[in-house]
């Protein structure tokens, strides 16, 4: 008897009981004997040259063990390499601690003490003499002719440039012949990814073996290992990075930070374990921000309102220096800007600018939330100007299913999808949505359609993009001598539940019950190498495929060994997940596994090591699709927008665990909603951050989030063997735009000004007042 497949079932997550019992072990839960505690010294000024660094008073404090300043750090470390470049990028690596600081919160040193409190006491006693320099905190200001220069040797604040899609002259021709052009300046501000668990590290150096063991709250153990090896001048095989249970990441923890590297340096230097845990205020200035772009975008239409051309000029705020991924998210904005629509031409330019602010990097959506905001707001503006319903304008321009596979002018290849059907179903699902344009509480309906870039690979694309990451994934399955199965994957669980989905895939492929399987990841000593791990919504598609294939191979092998035992053909062997049977004869998996590991009864040609491995490098990325519909109430008296109802039709092909899938979509929408209405990192013009706590940076709370209604379509991917597509970012990407469009629909009088997220009460009040709509 074979149990029903687990793929497609709403299985509870295997990690839940541990978490709910308070027994999940996060990095700050680790305590080692003799462990010291670190505080990072951070620049309190946005731009300055360090003239002197005096740690004498700190070192005199009882309990302070060591202080490392910029000179010590420069002597003992190599700069960290940028891992995603554009051709001609003018900064390609970043020192751990520089003698010129370029943003508030930038690390300048580390204090190590017997307790965290003493480390912070010591940090207060370090005297650093800063010689202030003029600062610039916004990308457009940084491009002004008289702007202060962050790197005077470069002669300007532009450090990276790139062009995408249709060649500029062809693009101009398309605009020159357009019947109608809509042009806007849009903005998606910096946001703080804000995982509830901040960053942290415990580093333990064993002088005897020269091995450094690092537990760190990070998405990518192998990437961390390789960067640490380079920075600390150690061999890769002397560093083991272990991922504890992670309290969220959302991209913010996708690379090694200077802070963690400094704690590791201290551990090696002092030959004692060192712990560093970021606090929330540090997180707002020291952890990379997401988004942060200004966009001049144009949409051209012909006389039938068919889209003919799209042009997006991106001014990318990189912050004080390019992060490891540098312009990466902004490149993705360019490449995904066309979305699910047809155009004859589409192009983009990117100007990467440094400013005296925290660097920007990955955040859920990774440039796609921005491209959706640009495109979908622009489409609504076009609809408003042309007097066409926004849904009708979309319907006329969506790529029909018959055109699949479809190559966009940005050279993205959409594999499968039925976008008109998504829109049709979304209209049906949201049929009860209300629009009210009278009274003091207005109601509007906003739509956004999207294609989601998922399953990043193949390795060749990453090489072409000058991104130092492997696109493949490996899985290894081992049948243990007691008959249990251990699956090793490079995909890290950052809280999303990928471990459960991979367990389901393994169970089906092995024909074994889920509780006989353990999925292990996040340890460079045992996990297959993966530099991207679960980034780019690739965990299930790229990581799951080799799990399936390795497990199938293992099952075939077990059946072969069992068949030989009974002198039968493999086709005559039945396996029920516990034992193998031929007619009346049977052998338990546990017995077969034990015998095989001992080398007993081993058929000719079979090896005793019960392990199978598979490597999968996808042929291409695979594109998921969705249409989001938001109903938003705008209270003209309080200038607040509130999402009252929300509908999603989502297509990620074959869905492995619908419960987890819906959780990803709903949680993603909450983050997109935050971006639409609440979240914005702000700086004073002199580079002073103004949002450094959860009191001035508002995250959505329960009352902000309506219950989301989700309908799934299941158009299998033609790229992944099992038809799966990713969905980790699909909720976040279009939701900001759908909500923005709903606000615009509710108050068309101000719609033309709703171009910069978030549409917070302060913004709305100003616009409503100008339109004489405020109280």
């Amino acid at each position, binding site marked *: 008897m074979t149990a029903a497949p687990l793929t497609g079932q*709403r299985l*509870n*997550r295997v*990690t*839940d*009981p*541990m*978490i*709910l*019992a*308070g*027994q*999940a*072990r*996060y990095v*700050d*839960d680790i*305590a080692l004997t003799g462990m010291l505690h670190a505080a990072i010294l951070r620049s309190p000024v946005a731009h300055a040259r360090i003239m002197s660094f005096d740690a004498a008073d700190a070192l005199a*404090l009882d309990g302070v063990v060591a202080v490392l300043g910029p000179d010590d750090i420069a002597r003992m470390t190599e700069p960290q390499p940028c891992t995603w470049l554009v051709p001609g990028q003018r900064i390609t690596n970043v020192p751990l601690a520089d003698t010129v600081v370029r943003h508030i919160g930038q690390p300048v040193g580390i204090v190590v003490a017997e307790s965290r*409190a003493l480390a912070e*006491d010591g940090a207060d006693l370090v005297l650093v003499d800063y010689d202030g320099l003029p600062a610039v905190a916004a990308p457009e200001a940084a491009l002004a002719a008289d702007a202060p220069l962050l790197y005077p040797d470069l002669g300007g604040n532009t450090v990276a440039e790139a062009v995408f899609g249709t060649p500029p002259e062809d693009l101009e021709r398309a605009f020159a012949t357009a019947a109608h052009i809509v042009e806007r300046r849009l903005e998606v501000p910096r946001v703080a990814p*804000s*995982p*509830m*668990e*901040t960053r942290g590290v415990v580093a333990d150096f064993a002088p005897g073996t020269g091995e450094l063991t690092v537990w760190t709250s990070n998405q990518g153990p192998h990437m961390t290992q390789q960067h640490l090896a380079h920075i600390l001048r150690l061999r890769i095989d002397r560093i083991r990075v272990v991922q504890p*249970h*992670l*309290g*969220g990441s*959302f991209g913010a923890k996708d690379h090694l930070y200077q802070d963690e590297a400094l704690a590791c340096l201290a551990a090696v230097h002092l030959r004692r374990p060192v712990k560093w845990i970021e*606090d*929330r205020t540090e997180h707002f200035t020291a952890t990379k921000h997401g988004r942060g772009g200004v966009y001049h975008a144009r949409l051209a239409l012909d006389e039938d309102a068919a889209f003919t051309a799209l042009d997006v000029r991106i001014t990318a705020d990189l912050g004080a220096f390019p992060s490891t991924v540098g312009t990466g998210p902004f490149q993705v904005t360019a490449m995904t800007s066309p979305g699910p629509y047809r155009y004859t031409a589409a192009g983009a330019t990117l100007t990467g600018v440094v400013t005296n602010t925290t660097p920007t990097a990955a955040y859920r959506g990774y440039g796609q939330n921005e491209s959706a905001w640009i495109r979908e707001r622009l489409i609504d503006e076009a609809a408003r100007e042309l007097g066409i319903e926004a849904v009708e304008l979309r319907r006329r321009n969506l790529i029909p299913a018959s055109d699949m596979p479809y190559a966009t002018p940005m050279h993205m290849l959409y594999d499968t999808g039925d976008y008109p059907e998504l829109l049709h179903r979304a209209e049906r699902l949201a049929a009860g949505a209300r629009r009210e344009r009278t009274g003091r509480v207005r109601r509007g309906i906003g739509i956004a359609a999207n294609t989601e870039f998922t399953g990043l690979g193949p390795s060749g694309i990453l090489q072409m993009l000058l991104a130092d990451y492997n696109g493949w994934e490996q899985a290894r399955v081992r049948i243990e001598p007691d008959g249990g199965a251990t699956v090793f994957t490079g995909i890290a669980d*950052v*809280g*999303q*539940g990928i471990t459960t989905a991979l367990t389901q895939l393994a169970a089906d492929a092995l024909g074994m019950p889920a509780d006989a399987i353990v999925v292990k990841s996040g340890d460079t000593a045992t996990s297959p190498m993966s530099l991207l791990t679960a980034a780019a919504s690739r965990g299930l598609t790229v990581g799951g495929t080799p799990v399936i294939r390795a497990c199938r191979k293992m099952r075939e092998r077990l059946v072969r060994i069992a068949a030989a035992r009974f002198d039968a053909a493999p086709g005559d062997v039945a396996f029920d997940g516990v034992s193998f049977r031929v007619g009346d004869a049977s052998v338990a998996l546990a017995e077969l596994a034990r015998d095989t590991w001992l080398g007993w009864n081993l058929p000719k040609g079979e090896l005793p090591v019960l392990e199978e491995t598979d490597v999968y490098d996808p042929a291409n990325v695979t594109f998921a699709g969705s249409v989001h519909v938001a109903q938003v109430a705008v209270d003209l008296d309080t200038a607040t927008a509130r999402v009252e109802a929300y509908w999603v039709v989502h297509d990620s092909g074959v869905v492995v665990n619908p*419960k*987890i899938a*819906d*959780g990803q979509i*709903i*949680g*993603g*929408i*909450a*983050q997109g909603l935050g971006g639409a209405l609440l979240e914005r990192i702000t700086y004073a013009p002199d580079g002073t951050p103004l949002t450094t*706590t*959860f*009191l001035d940076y508002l*995250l*959505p*709370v*329960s*009352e902000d*989030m309506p*219950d*989301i209604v989700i309908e799934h379509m299941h158009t299998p991917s033609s790229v992944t063997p099992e038809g799966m597509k990713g969905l980790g970012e699909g909720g976040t990407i279009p939701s900001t735009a759908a909500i923005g469009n709903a606000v615009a629909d509710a108050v068309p009088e101000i719609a033309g000004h709703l171009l910069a997220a978030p549409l917070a009460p302060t913004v709305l009040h100003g616009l409503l007042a100008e339109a004489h709509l405020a109280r």
Partner: protein
Amino acid sequence: MNATRHAITVHVNGAARTTDVEARTSLADLLRHELRLTGTHVACEQGVCGSCTVLLDGVPVRSCLMFAVQSDGRTVETVESLSGGESTADALDRFQRAMSDCHGLQCGFCTPGILMSVTAARREGLGVDETTHDVLGGHVCRCTGYQGIRDAIRTTWDADARDADGPAAGPAADTAARDGGRA
């Protein structure tokens, strides 16, 4: 910085714990780093997010905003008390299980605080609306979008209402909460 120390006795999860703490030690740090009850999490250290919520004499408090010495002679309940620290599905109480069934957690960092606040609300007999609005409103979750948590509260309250023995019935009566999430 001249740290004075104080001997205190706190009744934590049913056991008296006597320890010596610095005056500046927070209750959260006492629980986590002295008593090694690491299920209580610290996410903002300023009382906004609710992750560190524990019950002090039965009342939810932000353990990051209290000094450990303020808990001297009082009782503290942490997440580890809910299922006796046992990590098996069978050991979970009704609301813990509903949280899993309804996918009310992802990374789980904020979860212990929510569990403690909702546990107090359930004991106090608060209504389902008050609990989903006001009680959950005191917590920030970055992963779930709250929908699964609200579903778990509704599921638990429904099961409690059906259950003549009320919330004290324990895990054995909790099977009714299974698969009570959205269809």
